[in-house]
């Protein structure tokens, strides 16, 4: 029975030592020490990866969230209170970013479902006396027509289409959504 206790104490003391080291590095980071910043980010990398892996399944998305968390830590560094444990501060930020990311992903997938609706409806109506797509598209405002064409005809991703149009992803989504609404109305859906 004694051996596991010794192991646990050892483990605890290692954790405590690591936590103290991180807190010291964070304090030096607040003072503007670039080496401390580097050492701290390297030190927390594995723990952060482990933490995020339980919340984000996709490896590519994980990389994005990982990057966001690092930036958030950097931006919120003035909110760390010297002398207090570092990990609750770190993981609160990481959790916040992961939750934000999940929300965004949910709304994105919800939006993509919405987008996927229209062409199917159009295809179903191909035999009816629906107006030609070109003629209908011509009635849309230029930005909406461009957004629709890039996403549904050229098959670009939202990000790529936004970059090509020179607008934010959000703005492009709004344009596309308005285009779909107008098209539905024009086609009579």
């Amino acid at each position, binding site marked *: 029975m004694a051996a596991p206790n010794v192991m646990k104490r050892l483990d605890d003391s290692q954790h405590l030592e690591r936590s103290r080291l991180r807190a010291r590095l964070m304090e030096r980071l607040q003072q503007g020490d670039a080496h401390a910043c580097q050492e701290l980010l390297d030190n927390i990398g*594995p723990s952060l990866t482990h933490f995020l892996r339980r919340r984000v399944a996709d490896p590519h998305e994980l990389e994005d969230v990982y990057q966001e968390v690092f930036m958030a830590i950097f931006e919120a560094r003035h909110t760390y209170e010297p002398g207090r444990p570092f990990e609750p501060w770190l993981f609160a930020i990481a959790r916040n970013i992961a939750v934000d990311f999940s929300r965004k992903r949910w709304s994105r997938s919800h939006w993509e479902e919405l987008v996927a609706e229209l062409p199917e409806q159009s295809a179903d109506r191909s035999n009816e006396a629906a107006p030609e797509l070109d003629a209908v598209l011509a009635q849309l405002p230029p930005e909406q027509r461009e957004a629709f064409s890039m996403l549904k005809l050229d098959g670009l991703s939202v990000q790529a289409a936004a970059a090509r149009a020179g607008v934010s992803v959000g703005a492009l989504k709004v344009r596309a959504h308005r285009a779909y609404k107008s098209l539905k109305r024009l086609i009579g859906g």
Partner: protein
Amino acid sequence: MNGTAYIVHEEHHRALVKRLSSEVTPTRPLWPVGGRLALWMMLEVGVLAWVISHTTNHFTAKLTHPVYVIELLFFAAAAIISALLALRSAIPGRTLSASAAAIAAALVLAGTIVLTIAQPMDTSNPLGDFVRTGLRCAYETVVLGTLPWLALWWLVKRGAAMEGWLSGLLVGAGALLFSFAAMRITCPIDEPLHLLTWHLLPALVVITLSTLAGAAWLRFRPRSRHRAAVD
């Protein structure tokens, strides 16, 4: 770094660390919560001093009534606890004490009960008078809470609130409950219907607006500046 390499690409991590390390500048940590709360309370004391020096209400005579004093203290204490929690909510990893929040809510509830039963309700007032007098009180409640609200909002915004709506709620509660207490000093009317309709209700409306504003603008989000830099 072996630990990170199996999930996050080493090159990606390196680029990120290099970029952030190159941007490090000294930053001043936030003052401790207690210090910032004291600062905010100094502002409230200033507001209170202004109210006392400008009121025509003989509130000092009312101070002999324990019920009045208890009511004032309950609302003021609830405001201070809310402000304390608001400041804590802006520090990642600082857990908000559920018992402190429960105490604040209980104080507001008890204060409301006390003010309701302390005096009989007077429904004989003409509606026009009731509204005319009341609108002025509602306006003053909001005005007295504005500066403390702005100050507390700024103090919270300086931090990194993880739950924007909660921080907004606590900021609103801190400022407006204090404003309610200040209005009990400056307003000569003690009639419960007037107090509930024109003092407490406007305070609750502003607290609700503050919660919505907090959800929209108080939640910490890293700026996209770095995102573009590392991509």
